[in-house]
């Protein structure tokens, strides 16, 4: 297994108390595999990604427990200098908003070239040539002419291509993409996802795709982990999860996607709001919003039950949910 996260917990100290943003999360990613981490805002999916990358701001954040095993080494106990060498070279990250993720005062070619000068010790001239080669590879037209341009001179889709080029520059084994297409319009989204899939296949890179967009997930992922209130509530292969979810929250998410065969009918919405991370409900965190909740859900936190066929569900009533 390329990456294995075990029992990861992250808390934030705030004035109002300790917010447990991530609570005992565990998952694994094989080489070349795509894992989608699905969840709404505040579910802890981005914090998990930042903890794995090692770019959480500490303080206010604190990793209170867990292990992040990457190629067998626990990243959390590695000295910062060693981790820095891994970031960018062995694991890289793509961010949501490419405009704000690129330095406005450096030309795109210079920023791409930096990957090679910093990690590979290349000369500026060679790094620039590599940068142009990369821009070409991610489908930026007239790469040679545009290498001297600044980020604000590119369109949203082109900027995200630059970000992808930066992440893939050193051919890392793992890429974490945090909502890579959320800031783009739908047609460009599809182009970017296709590009990502194509390059990933070529380089056999594993991908952790963080998103709240079920459409993106269906197309790109091998497996899905659904997060709610800082916990993983269900993991399953994509097909199985879409066919029959084993957790009421996943079911609610799938039911709230607009469908052509239900045209004209009112769209389903999960009632209530996501919990405040400072006051996560007792027992199963989803029980106040859950249509199948019973007394046990208020008192006992469900473990991740093995539901067979590579799926796991943190619901006391996963069997009923699975049967519909």
């Amino acid at each position, binding site marked *: 297994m390329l990456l294995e996260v075990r029992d990861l917990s992250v808390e934030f100290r705030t004035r109002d108390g300790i917010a447990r943003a991530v609570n005992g999360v565990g998952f694994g990613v094989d080489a070349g595999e*795509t894992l989608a981490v699905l969840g709404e805002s505040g579910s802890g999916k981005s914090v998990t990604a930042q903890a794995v990358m090692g770019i959480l701001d500490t303080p206010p954040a604190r990793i209170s427990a867990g292990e992040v095993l990457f190629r067998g080494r626990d990243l959390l106990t590695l000295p910062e200098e060693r981790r820095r060498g891994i970031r960018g070279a062995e694991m890289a990250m793509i961010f949501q908003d490419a405009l704000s993720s690129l330095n406005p005062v450096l030309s795109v070619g210079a920023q791409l070239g930096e990957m090679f000068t910093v990690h590979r010790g290349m000369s500026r001239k060679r790094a620039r040539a590599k940068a142009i080669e990369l821009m070409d590879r991610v489908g930026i037209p007239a790469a040679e002419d545009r290498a001297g341009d600044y980020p604000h001179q*590119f369109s949203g889709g082109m900027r995200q291509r630059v970000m992808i080029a930066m992440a893939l520059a050193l051919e890392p084994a793992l890429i974490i993409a945090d909502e890579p297409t959320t800031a783009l319009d739908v047609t460009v989204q599809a182009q970017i996802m296709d590009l990502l899939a194509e390059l990933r296949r070529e380089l056999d890179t594993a991908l952790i795709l963080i998103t709240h967009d079920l459409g993106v997930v*269906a197309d790109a992922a091998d497996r899905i982990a659904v997060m709610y209130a800082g916990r993983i509530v269900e993991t399953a292969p994509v097909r199985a999860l879409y066919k029959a979810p084993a957790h009421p929250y996943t079911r609610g998410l*799938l039911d709230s996607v607009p469908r052509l065969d239900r045209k004209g009918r009112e769209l389903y919405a999960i009632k209530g709001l996501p919990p405040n991370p400072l006051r996560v409900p007792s027992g199963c965190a989803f029980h106040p919003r859950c249509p199948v909740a019973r007394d046990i859900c208020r008192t006992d936190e469900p473990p991740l039950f093995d539901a067979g066929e590579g799926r796991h569900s943190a619901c006391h009533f996963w069997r009923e949910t699975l049967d519909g």
Partner: protein
Amino acid sequence: MPEPQRTCPAGAVVATLEKPPAHLGDGASTARKPRGLWSDAWHDLRRNPVFVVSALVILFLLAIAAWPSLIASRNPLSCDLALAQEGARPGHPFGFNGQGCDVYTRTVHGARTSVVVGVLATLGVAVTGSVLGALAGFFGGAWDAVLSRIGDVFFGIPVVLGGLVLLSVVSGSTVWPVIGFMVLLGWPQISRIARGSVITVKQNDYVQAARALGASPARILLRHILPNAVAPVIVVATIALGTFIALEATLSYLGVGLKPPTVSWGIDISDASPYIRNSPHMLLWPAGALAVTVLAFIMLGDAVRDALDPKLR
């Protein structure tokens, strides 16, 4: 590894396109020449009349500071008491001061002192303030607390009172004690701005992205944060340059700044003030030169701020 699915099992709506030509609908303006923040600012500045006027005044000032004898060939220290307080006459367009020195020559030669004090004090303040402010903003925590409190102490000292106390104990007539005093009291202003600016820039996604791609703290600070945080410092420093020139005149006027035989507008203003009713020309010329110089730097600072503030674009 299974092939990525093309169908959407739960009926999710996904737009999947046949691979479209990359150059369609996703191109950016290629007609315009690429410009960064600085060249963009320079492009704006050249069209701003306020900048052009103040820059010309400052260039002229720098020229006469470097080569005063170009337009005033007399010795500013050769005076004739017989001509004391005389008005303008051919060859002496500004008249004579209380010691019988040529006011025109002294006003021209006084520019050098003002420029040297203004520029060196500003450089000292900008470098000290930026370094300390950037460190405080970048590292935060105890560093920040200690540096900010030390800055507050110096920030709280009234400039004129501090000058009277500190500078009255130094002897000699060089410019260094005055410059040192200005840096000592001036750095907190720049350091506060640099700190705030670094904290703002630090939170940008591209700093996070640089970390995620393996950049070291030094590289992040020097290459990604400072170039984006330096604009407000430049603006404030430009305006401060004018106020340092005025402060030098103030301190010299009070007798704790520069001392004769240094030629300085502040000294001349001080010497002339008792005679303002009888011989106003002795005061007006050095005071006018001072006012124009300070104004030019403040206007320049304003223009630079307008050009560097991306929100105004």
